[in-house]
C-alpha cells in the first residue's frame, strides 16, 4: 500500500512541477499555425545555410543567350534578363534576407535593451533623454527613416541592415523600459538591493533575464518586418547592390518584364511572402504561448 501511493502521485506531481516555460511550449506546440510558421522558418534557415550546395548555379553566371526563359526542367524558376537561373538566385538570396533579418534585429535588441534598461532602472533625467530620443525616432515613418539613413550612409546591404536596426531600436527600448519599470518594484529586486548587490549585477542577473520573453516574441515579429524593409530598400535600389541576389532587388529588376516574363517577379515575390509569413505565424504563436495576458 505504502509503495503504491507515491507511484500514483508521481504523474500528478510531474504535471504540477511543469515550469511556466514548458507550459508555454506546450501551448505553442498545440497551435497548428505556429508550427506551420516554424516549419517555414526552419526551411528557409536550412536554405540559407546549405544554399550554395543546393543551388545549381552561382549568383552571377550570366549567359545573355539564355535570357528570360520560362520555367523548365533545366531552370525550375526560369531565367532572368541576364540568363541567370532564378531558382539558384532565390535560394542564395535566402541567406541575405535572413542575415539582414536576424542581424538587424539582434543589433536593435542589443542597443534597445541597453538604452531601455538604463532608462527604466535609473529613471529621472536619464529616462527623459532616452525616452525623448525614442520618441524622435518613432515620429518618422519607419521606411522613410530607413531611406534617410541609407541615403546618408550610401546604398549597400550592410548600411540597409544598420538602418533597419536603428529604426527598430525604439520598439525594443520602450518594451524593455516598461518591463524594467515593473520588475524593479518586485520584492526580489528590493531583496537583492537589501543584501547589497551592485546595480550592474541586479540589472544583468535579475532584470534582464526577467524581461527576455516579450523581447523574443517581439523579436520574431520584428524579423519579418526587417525582411520586408530590406526588400523594400533593395527594391528602391538602396539596399543590396548588383549582382547580389537580394529578393527585393530581384523584384525591382523584374519590374519591366512583368508582362513578358512574369516568372522573374513571381518567385522572388513568393520567397519574400513565405519567409515573412513564416516569421509572423511563428511570432504570433510565441506571443500566444508566452504572453500571460493571452492565456485564457
Amino acid at each position, binding site marked *: 500500500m505504502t509503495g503504491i501511493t507515491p507511484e500514483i502521485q508521481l504523474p500528478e506531481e510531474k504535471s504540477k512541477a511543469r515550469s511556466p516555460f514548458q507550459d508555454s511550449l506546450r501551448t505553442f506546440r498545440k497551435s497548428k499555425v505556429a508550427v506551420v510558421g516554424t516549419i517555414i522558418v526552419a526551411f528557409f534557415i536550412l536554405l540559407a545555410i546549405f544554399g550554395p550546395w543546393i543551388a545549381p548555379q552561382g549568383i552571377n553566371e550570366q549567359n*545573355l543567350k539564355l535570357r528570360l526563359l520560362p520555367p523548365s526542367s533545366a531552370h525550375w524558376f526560369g531565367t532572368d534578363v*541576364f540568363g541567370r537561373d532564378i531558382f539558384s538566385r532565390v535560394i542564395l538570396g535566402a541567406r541575405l534576407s535572413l542575415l539582414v533579418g536576424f542581424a538587424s534585429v539582434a543589433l536593435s535588441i542589443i542597443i534597445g535593451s541597453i538604452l531601455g534598461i538604463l532608462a527604466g532602472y535609473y529613471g529621472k533625467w536619464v529616462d527623459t533623454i532616452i525616452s525623448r530620443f525614442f520618441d524622435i525616432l518613432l515620429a518618422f515613418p519607419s521606411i522613410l527613416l530607413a531611406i534617410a539613413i541609407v541615403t546618408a550612409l550610401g546604398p549597400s546591404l550592410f548600411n540597409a541592415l544598420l538602418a533597419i536596426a536603428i529604426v527598430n531600436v525604439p520598439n525594443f527600448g520602450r518594451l524593455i523600459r516598461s518591463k524594467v519599470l515593473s520588475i524593479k518594484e518586485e520584492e526580489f529586486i528590493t531583496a537583492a538591493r537589501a543584501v547589497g548587490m551592485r546595480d550592474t549585477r541586479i540589472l544583468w542577473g535579475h532584470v534582464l533575464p526577467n524581461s527576455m520573453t516579450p523581447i523574443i516574441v517581439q523579436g520574431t515579429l520584428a524579423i519579418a*518586418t526587417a525582411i520586408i524593409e530590406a526588400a523594400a530598400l533593395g527594391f528602391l535600389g538602396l539596399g543590396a547592390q*548588383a549582382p547580389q541576389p537580394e529578393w527585393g532587388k530581384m523584384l525591382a529588376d523584374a519590374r*519591366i518584364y512583368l508582362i*513578358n516574363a512574369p516568372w522573374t517577379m513571381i518567385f522572388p515575390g513568393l520567397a519574400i511572402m513565405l519567409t515573412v509569413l513564416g516569421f509572423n505565424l511563428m511570432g504570433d504563436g510565441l506571443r500566444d504561448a508566452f504572453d500571460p495576458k493571452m492565456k485564457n
Partner: protein
Amino acid sequence: MKKKSFVFVLLLILVLSTALAACGEKKDSGSDGDKKEKVLVFGRGADSVKLDPAAVTDGESLNVTKNIFETLINFGEQNTDLVPGLASKWETSKNGLEYTFELQKGVKFQDGTDFNAEAVVKNFERWMNGNAKKFPYFQSMFGGFKGDKNAVIKEVKADGEDKVIITLNYPQAPFLKNLAMTPFAIASPTALEKEGKNFEKKPVGTGPFTFVEWKRNDSITLKKNEDYWQKGLPKLDKVIFRSIPDNSARLNALTSGEIDLADGINPSDAKMIEDNPNLQLFKRPSLNVGYLGLTVTRKPFDDKKVRQAVNYAIDKQAIVDTFYEGQADVAKNPMPPVIKGFNDSVEDYKYDPEKAKKLLAESDYKGETIELWAMPVPRPYMPDGQKIAEAIQKNLEDVGMKSKIVNYEWGTYLDKASKGEADAFLLGWTGDNGDADNFLYTLLDEDNIGSNNYTFFKNAETHKLLKEAQKEVDEEKRAKLYEKAQEIIHDEAPWVAIAYSTPLLAGKKEITGFKAHPTGSDRFDTIDFK
C-alpha cells in the same frame, strides 16, 4: 501595420491598374467620329521646363515648342536635310559669310502680329543680347553673344519686308543646320514685349498649334491654330502633352486608352505592341549613341591600354541583343552612320576577352576596383542603364577587372560626371541637328571639358581637325577631316561606343500621318485619326 505595407502597395497597384483600365475603355469612343473634336493625348516621360524654346535645352520642352513655333529652316520629315520653313529660300555668299533669307509671305503670329523681316531681326537681337545663362543653346551653337570673341553672328539686318541678311564673323559650316534647330524658332515680338519674363509660360509663335494651358507636372494643352498659313494643317483640334514618368505606367495608359501616343517605350515591350491589334509601333530614326565613358584623367583609365582592354572586354553585340532587343545597332564610332563624315573603315574592337586580359597585363592596372556609374533613368539611347551596367560588370570581371556599380539621382549623376568624378560611366547623346560637329566636337573636344566632354579627353590632333572642320565649307573636305578624327578617337579609346539605338514610340492603330523625327522633337500637324 508595417509588415503589411509592402503587400498593401502591391495590391493597391493591382487595383488601381484595373480601375484605370476600366475607365479607359469608356473614353475611347471619343476619338473617332467626324463631328467630335480630334484630340491627341501624348504621353511622355517628364514635364517641360519652360516653353520659351531659346531658353531651354531639354527635349521635353522643345517637343512642345516645336508645335507652337517655327524656325526659318526646317529639317526634313524624318531626316536632317534642310527644307524651307518660315524662310522660303536662302542663299549663301561665296565666302560663306553672308546669308540671305527670303521669308514666307502672309504669315501671322498666333496673336495677330505680322511675321516679317523685322520680327526675325528682333528675335536675333534678343538672343544676341542675351547671355549663356539665358540662352544656353545659342551659346553652344553660335559661339557666343554680341561682343564675344568667338561669336559667329556679326549682325542681322532686314532688307525690306521679307528679306533678312545675316552676316557672320567667320564661316561656320553647320550654320544653316544650327538655324534649323528647334530652339531657334521665331517668337512673336509683340508677345515678347508684352509678357516679358512671363513669355516662357505664355508662348506665342507662328506654329500649327496655339498654347492653351499648362498644369505643372501634369499636362500642357494646345489647340488648333485656325489661321495657320499652311492650308489644311493641322489636322487635329487639340493636343494634350501628359507627363507619365514611368515607362511601364505610360504603356499601361496607352493600352487602356487613356493616352493616344506614348513616347519612351521599353524595347522589351515592342513585341507586345506589335502583337496588339489596337496598337502600332513607331520607330524614331536613330540619331544617337549610347556609350561607356572612361574618364581619361583618372586611374586606371589614364592608360590607353586599359581603355582598349575594356573595349575588347565588353560583349557589345550581346548587350544590344539583350537590352535593346534588336532595336539598335552595335556602335563603333562616337556618332551614328547616318551623319555625313561617319568613318565606316574604322575597324571595331571585337569582343575578345583574351586580348583584353593580355592588354591589361601589359598595362599599369594593378587589380584595383573601379567605379562603374549607371544611369538611374531610361534614356532614348539607353533603355536600362542599370542592367547594362550589370552586364558590363560581369564582362569586366571575366577579364580580371573588379567594379562597383554606383548610382546617383539623374541631375547629380550628370553634374558629378561632368566634373570628372566617375571612373567609368554610362551615358549617351541624341543629335540636335544631324551634324558631325554636334557629336565629335561637342562630346570629345577639349573646349567642351566641363560641359559635354565627360571623359576629359584631350588630344591636340583631334582638336585641330575638329576646329578646322567647323570652318570648312566644302562638304567633302569636311567629311574627310571628321573621318580622320574618328580614327584617332578610335585608337585613343576614351569611350566604349555601345549602340546606335532606335527609340520606340507606340500609338493607337487609328493614328495616321505621324512621323517620329530623329532629333526627338516631333511635329503633330500632320497627325490625323482614321
